[in-house]
């Protein structure tokens, strides 16, 4: 899973998609996850990193993570599965 190439994320949590001209706000934990995705970390690695650092458990986080990824897809911010397999 990859963030679209041109998508820019600032540390302050502003995300800009130059293809569509859309802007988004992301909360700090969201920025952290986006950065981990950028670093090609697997979902398991991301989950471990977050659960180690924050007061949550794996089940809760993984549910929230799936939801977050779903919304990234919804807004067309991730390379779709098809594209990555070509």
């Amino acid at each position, binding site marked *: 899973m990859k963030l679209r190439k041109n998508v820019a994320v600032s540390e302050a949590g502003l*995300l800009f998609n130059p293809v569509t001209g*859309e*802007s*988004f*706000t*992301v*909360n*700090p*934990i*969201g920025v*952290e*996850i986006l950065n981990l995705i950028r670093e090609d970390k697997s979902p398991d690695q991301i989950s471990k990193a977050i659960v180690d*650092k*924050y*007061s*949550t458990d794996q089940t*809760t*986080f993984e549910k*929230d*993570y799936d*939801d*977050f990824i*779903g*919304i*990234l897809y*919804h*807004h067309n*911010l991730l390379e779709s599965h098809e594209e990555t397999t070509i």
Partner: protein
Amino acid sequence: MSKIRYERPVIKKIETGMPNKFGTRTEYEPMTHIDGLAVKSLVKEYGSPLFILSEKTIRNTIKKARKAFETRYPKVQFAWSYKTNYLNAICSIFHQEGSWAEVVSGFEYDKAISLGVDGKKIIFNGPEKSEEDLAKAIKNNSLIHIDHLDELYTITELAEKINFRPRVAIRVNMDTGVYPMWDRFGFNYENGQAWDAINKIMHSGKMELAGLHCHIGTFMLSPYAYGIAASKLAELALSVEQKFKHEIKYIDLGGGFASKNTLKGSYLPGTDINPSFDDFAEAISTALLNSNFKQDKLPLLILETGRALIDEAGYLLGSVISNKRSSTGRRNTIVDIGVNILFTSFWYDHRITPAQAFTQYTEDTCVYGPLCMNIDVIRESISLPLLNRGDHVVIHSVGAYNMTQWMQFIALRPNVVLIDMDEKPHIIRLRETLDNMNSQEQVPAHLVKFNK
């Protein structure tokens, strides 16, 4: 090493230009305490969901209302509208603050009597009063507000039979410029029905016409309409005086003042735009003082204010069950509060505040309850800080009508707790139990056994 407080990851599109239907963010502070008591501890002790009523807020509100009227008009009497919230503890607070009782059924009448209210201080409204109810009210010398001619004739007969002169008023409906006009109850002013009824009462000689009553609507946003109503009733009273040399002792303008809730579809919050007690008092007292009553013959002004006196004192605490996405990607937040105990969510966009700390990030969401029914929506669209499963929420201004119109449906109705003046909690209505429910039922003998 302690971990950082977890928050769900969120991403939200920035919309420019278009005003959005979720409105602007209104919650900047969590509501962790109510009258000094922690929401978290209240829920732990008394369960979730949980109704909370603040005695402090109730007393402050009735004092404010009385002051608004009493500083403008010499004779004012409030009568607590039982249907708005008839939990005994609540009625007693109003009675301690000097309010009479305003009831609309035999059940409410008996409730007032059982609380120890003097029969003379009970106003009996409503279209459905049985002969038995009426006889009781006549013997107790209560104020009976006549709704229709059948009732008028029944009271005439009963007065003869009991040989007691009932004190009555008629309920008048009228055009005050408000739409829709409430003309189902009482006798109409404009078409002469009200004047006819007055003549029937005066000519019968069997009753004492003590007052004139109206209730022009509920959640009224126009003080001006009350000015019109007061003028019309004053005119009727003066006509009675002129024709029959009979003094009308009181004018009762009913209830209906808007509380500070926000009506569904309203662009601005009710706290900003709804009129205050002072606005209503100014319109009403001006109309009465400007009418042709002699200074020493001003009638007593009775007010049956309900929701505006209790809404803000009530809170409903609940917990987040789950966060979901709808098929279209919309955020949904499920809480343990169904519309069966929050009936007013059909009229109001109730304010909802998280009960624990949150960051500045928000999410547009639909808040709904656990009833497994599509109508079970508390807020269709609201911008809320991020909530996690198990977090608590506080729903504001729920004191009016919810604790009388609530329905027992698929679960049991929750505890109601009053926080007293010293910030001590008291259960004033116990959570229902399965035994409570079953004790009302009877199973015929042939249905008792089945193969297990």
